[in-house]
């Protein structure tokens, strides 16, 4: 009997032993880091030195977002940093929400960046924050990040207030009233296509809107230069006080009659963020014009949410940058006298130096006085030396004989609406395998504005005689 009891006891203990073994699967999937079980808000609430920020999160309703199942990163200012926070922000719920939102991003930032590595993250208030090294904007990250179930938490030593973007700053600034008023004045009313009712489409597929569509104002600066309101881009913007603004505009008015102010302001925006310490002596505007910058000329600067604004007391543009050499490329015609697609060749060739060039050839089109029309807008009013390059007779080119082609330029003064007048500007004899530019003559536009040019063939229908070839025309201004 004793034996049975001992056997039964043995069996029983084996079963108990087996059941008390730790389950391998549970052990494997167990969360090793307790942080991976808490959400961001719980983590913030648990940090004593973030209690103020945690209260703000709660009062602004962001706590619900921070407990959701998407990944967020919070840069939470410590209680010490928040001690200096403007009371006006704390008392205004809207401002506070914007303020708190300026510290939360819907993404998880897994590691502080190295000093050479920049990261921009979009924040919940739609602003972007720039992270360079251990800097969150102007604040420094304290200690290592904490990574929880739904994101990352960094504490920072400064309260980072919401910044204005460049456009908002420009409008609110009083440093350059003339420039500001000019830029804000160049706006037009356009149909608000997002909110307008579309009642149909015309034959080209353009929508037809219902009568009296809603209109919105659109600034020409946004479309032609840069939309300085965009948070996702970064710009460096220069503002000129009235005196400087006037003097610079005056320099331009002989060449840009009527458009001198726009010509000035369009070259005040540079793509990218250039803080003072990283400011080079020359920048390139969004339109490709060089901007000479002297740090000593900076009167004031503002770090906007999407870039930098500098108020300058000198910004000496060079005239040759504003009135540049320009080219009309043969292969970019505006139109033709008639459709000769089968005879028109857009060529990609190598010249005698082995350099690639593209040009146009219209060959054997059997049309007397056939022409190709070229267009160039906003041509400054100044005398130009004009050079042309037209290469015939290269390998594969049927045009091996010399031929003659002419250049006619539209005269806005003598033309009427019904009868356009084109003055003969130059006649060029194209000799085979001439790879150099040929000086055509001097040209002075009748006024600032559009250059309308026709490259015209001989008055003949014969092949090899009425050919047209053009690589480019180069207009070199003759400046004082």
């Amino acid at each position: 009997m004793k034996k049975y009891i001992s056997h039964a006891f043995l069996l029983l203990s084996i079963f108990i032993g087996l059941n008390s073994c730790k389950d391998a699967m549970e052990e494997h999937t167990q969360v090793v880091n307790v942080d991976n079980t808490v959400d961001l808000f719980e983590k913030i609430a648990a940090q004593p030195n973030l209690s103020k920020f945690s209260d703000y999160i709660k009062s602004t309703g962001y706590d619900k977002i921070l407990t959701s199942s998407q990944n967020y990163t919070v840069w939470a200012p410590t209680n010490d940093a928040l001690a200096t926070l403007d009371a006006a922000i704390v008392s205004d719920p809207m401002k506070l929400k914007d303020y708190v939102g300026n510290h939360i991003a819907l993404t998880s930032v897994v590691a502080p960046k190295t000093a050479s590595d920049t990261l921009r993250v979009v924040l919940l208030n739609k602003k972007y924050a720039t992270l360079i090294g251990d800097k969150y904007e102007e604040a420094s990250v304290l200690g290592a990040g904490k990574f929880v179930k739904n994101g990352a938490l960094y504490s920072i030593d400064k309260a980072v207030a919401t910044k204005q973007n460049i456009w908002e700053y420009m409008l609110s600034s009083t440093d350059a009233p003339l420039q500001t008023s000019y830029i804000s004045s160049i706006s037009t009313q356009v149909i608000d296509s997002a909110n307008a009712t579309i009642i149909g489409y015309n034959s080209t597929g353009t929508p037809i809107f219902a009568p009296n569509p809603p209109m919105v104002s659109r600034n020409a600066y946004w479309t032609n230069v840069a939309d300085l309101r965009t948070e996702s881009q970064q710009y460096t913007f220069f503002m000129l006080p009235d005196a400087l603004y006037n003097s610079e505009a005056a320099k331009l008015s002989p060449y840009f009659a009527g458009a001198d102010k726009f010509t000035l302001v369009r070259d005040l925006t540079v793509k990218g963020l250039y803080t003072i310490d990283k400011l080079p002596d020359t920048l390139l505007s969004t339109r490709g014009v060089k901007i000479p910058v002297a740090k000593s000329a900076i009167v004031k600067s503002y770090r906007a949410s999407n870039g930098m604004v500098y108020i300058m007391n000198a910004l000496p543009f060079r005239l040759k940058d504003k009135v540049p050499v320009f080219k009309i490329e043969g292969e970019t015609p505006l139109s033709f006298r008639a459709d000769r697609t089968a005879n028109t060749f857009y060529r990609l060739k190598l010249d005698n130096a082995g350099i690639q060039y593209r040009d146009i050839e219209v060959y054997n089109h059997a049309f007397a006085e056939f022409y190709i029309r070229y267009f160039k807008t906003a041509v400054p009013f100044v005398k130009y030396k004009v050079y042309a390059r037209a290469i015939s007779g290269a390998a594969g080119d049927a045009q091996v004989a010399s031929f003659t082609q002419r250049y006619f330029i539209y005269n806005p003064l003598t033309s009427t609406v019904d009868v356009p007048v084109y003055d003969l500007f130059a006649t060029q004899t194209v000799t085979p395998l001439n790879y150099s530019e040929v000086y055509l003559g001097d040209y002075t536009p009748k006024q600032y504005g559009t250059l309308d040019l026709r490259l015209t063939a001989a008055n003949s229908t014969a092949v090899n005689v009425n050919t047209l070839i053009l690589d480019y025309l180069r207009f070199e201004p003759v400046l004082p």
Partner: protein
Amino acid sequence: MHNFTIIKRGFSLALFGLMLSAVAFAQQTDTSQYSTDTTTVKVKQKKLVGQRINGTVADGYTNKPLTGVKLTVADFSGTLTDDKGKFTLIVPNYNATILISMNGYHTKLLPVHKGKLATIKIYPTNYASVFTEVVLPSGTQNIARSASAIGTVNPQGGWNVNSETPDSYLQGRMAGVNAIRRSGTPGIGADIFVRGFTSLYATNQPLYVVDGMIFDANAYGTSLTTGHRNNPLQYIDVRDIESISLIKDAAAAAVYGTKAANGVMVITTNHAHDLATQIDFSAYSSINLQPRSLAVMNGGDFRTYLSDILKSRGLSSGAIAALPYMNDDPNPLSNPTYPMYHQNTDWQKEVFKRTFDQSYFLKVSGGDNIAKYALSAGYSKDKGVIDSTNNTKYTMRFNSDLNLTKKLTANTNLSFSYTEQTLKDQGISARTNPMFIALVKAPFLAKNEISANGAVSPNLAESDTLGVSNPRALIEKGLNQKKAYRFFGNINFDYQFNKSFKVSNLTGITYDKTQETLFIPRKGVTNEVLPTTIGDSKLGSQVIRYANVFNDLHFTFDKSFATNHNLHLTLGTRYSQNESEQDYAIGYNSATDVLISIGNSNASLRYFGGDIGKWSSLNSYFTTDYSYKDKYYLSLAMAVDASSRFGRKDISSDLRYVGGYGLDILGGKTAVLPAISGAWLISSEDFMKSLKDVDLLKLRMSYGLVGNDDIGNYNNRQYYVSQNLLGLQGLVRGNIANPNIQWESIAKFNTGVDASFFNERLSLSLDYYVHTTSKMLSYVPVSAIGGIDSFIDNQGSMQTTGLDFGLNARILNKTLKWDLGINLGTYKNKIQSLPNNTDILTAYANGTYITSKGQAANLFYGQRTNGVYATDAEAAAAGLSIINSAGVKVPFKGGDMRFIDTNGDKIINGSDRVVIGNPNPDLFGSFNNSFAYKNWSLDVLVSFVLGNNIYNYTRAMLESGSNYYNQTDAMRNRWRGEGQLTNVPKAAYGDPMGNAQFSDRWIEDGSYLRLRTVNLSYNVPLKIKAIKYAKIYATGNNLFTLTNYLGYDPEFSATGSIFTQGVDTTLEPQFRSVQLGVRIGL
């Protein structure tokens, strides 16, 4: 405790006996004589001169004296016990051997020594005894007299097993047999590895011989259902099996020549034993329990993971937040998909269901002097745990024994089985395996369509935006149907010319047909990308046929001469002709999901294919069993095999030795495979007579050659295969013909000891073996200029050595009886040579195996890891990089795996791979405990496997952190930020740094210990005359598994190839089931 002391004492005695055996050999002289075959014992009545002995015979179970037990001395004398179990017998001298036999009991061999015999105990046939009679190719033999390594199982009617096929039933029942159940699918069976493996590319499954005829257990053709294999062994009902014996060495198996490489499993089905009519009826019902779910992430965790993955893919945080499943705005007007993407579905619960099985079986036997019959019929409907899968099976068997004339007898074994199976894709099938889909599908989705207001439609949801199918669509609308049947029958005539000369002829046929239908619906399942178009629904149909004609003609000769000599000779020939054919049609894009037959598919996308095979073999064999004084046994066997598969050359000479134990006969290769074995029954020696506790002690040794003819039907010839090129069908060369191809030759050495002590209270057997495969089939690489980069030739060799151990003990033998059985097996494999000594690298399921000279075959070969870099600085300090697909060197960063740079070149690539695991177990076996108390009995079978490694492919998918698949909860530990200490790398779409590549991260310990079956039965005491008996059974299967494995279950076998062993490809897991049944005898 007392019992253990006895066992220990017995053990040391046995060892002592072993040591003395060599000395003792020279001293023996003897005079007894008997016939080896106990069924043909003849007793001559003549005046007996000899010694008179007295004794008592008792039942080993009850210790009660037995009446009517037959005691004989072969060809000399015989007697029966009286009503007190006593007997008196004249024996020729004190060296004689008595045979003690009785119906329903094991026949015991007992050497007579001078002096009074103690009470002789004999045991019923259900007791695991060394005196078990087994059926071998050369006839019935008592294990006690066999010189071969034999394993045996008696299913005892198999009344208490359900849903088991003969192969899965074998698990844990024999020493040295590692039966790995392929999956939990009903009827799928098991891969049986007898003493490890002997081949790389040919089969490693044993040969099945059912009622004297080869039973082809191969599955021909590939199933249309991914991961499924048709298992012909399911056509044999375990309840029809009388005994299973397994020949593990070469000696007794040699007669099967080139088919016996992996052992021979001899299965005998029930024949009538009594003339009286016996009716047995049983009915079962069982409940199958859902497997335990794997811990995959919930909706919230998955969404943070998903946003990490999307971010790593380059999506901006705004774009991620705008995705419908990230939009948390519950307003139906502004976010109409909110209800659709904000559920929390446990997909595993949608796929796995609790199911019920039922089974009925009827057996009738009886007859008269002329004819006896045994008829059985069975019906079962077994369900899998994957919802809506099942296996309906009908079996029918008619076995008869006919005494046609005095000398001519015949018996028939006819069986017909039919199954109808509803399946689902399993294994590596990311689009259509419902189990895999359930694991990886986003938990925030629902199975049905949901409107903006949250109304649930009865329509099933479409496959989702993350590219994962809806598992319910496959379960409810998909169709994987299989219908199969097999006729397996033979008739055997025996003509006994005289006492010692007999001729037998067995003729049989097998006809097998499998029909499959497949339909993968369009709705709810992701599309398949076809070469020229997109396949949205898939339809298929397949027919597989197999036919075999078999004939075995043999002569046997039995003779005893010169008092002590005994001879048994067999000479025979087997002819087998086989044909198999597979034809399938696959189509795509039926018009709607209700048009599901192949004819409705788009005709331009339909394609057809198949496979055809014809082979025949002629196997001539010769065996001699000789014994001297019933103590010394010697057997010789030889097979001469010719097969249509072997290489063939132009006739150069009529007969030529070709090496490798083969002959060229008329140009065709012919295998000549001899074997020799010997045994010494030490316990019958005179010097052992004082050791009364030793019932049997036998030493065995055998050596012989067997072959493996699974070398492909047509590799000796050149053949062409069809190929489609830009819509044109043509033929291209399929192989390089090898006229030298031959069977793999396996030399098997075996030595062992069988022993039994204390009136058979303790018996054990231990075997040591060395299997040396030469002429091993391997692919020989050749220059690919010819369009084919390898050919098949017999150029490798390997060796497997190992030990088998079996022990049976009756620990308690009072009112409470307790039998303990232990089976153990272990083996070591070593590759000895490979063509050009080139390592073989094989790939399966993103993993790699290496087979290299000097090592074991098929080892896992991959990267080693050591945690995860916590910071970028730490990674930079280690200085390791990868070369990405663009050829750019990319350094590891914080959150990447810390791979071990084995070759020190600071680049992690294929050359850093090392052996990271071995799928072969160190030790496998089982413990079996049977308890009996009055009318109650309890059987507990525990099986275990130790020290094997598993490549958890499923987990590699579920923890890759590189795609939109849902992941296990472990992924919550992924590296998220600088400085985090964890061992799970960061989530990165597309795995650019190879963090999820095949490495030791996915290799796990596959050891397990399983409560395989527990069976409790109660014999209801009845006093109704109409009913002979009634028994009630309760059986639990797989009730309890102890393992550290992290998948559903550590037991599975994706294919029969050794190059896929130990890879968990998400197959239906083994599930727990509990069944209740009743058996009634009329």
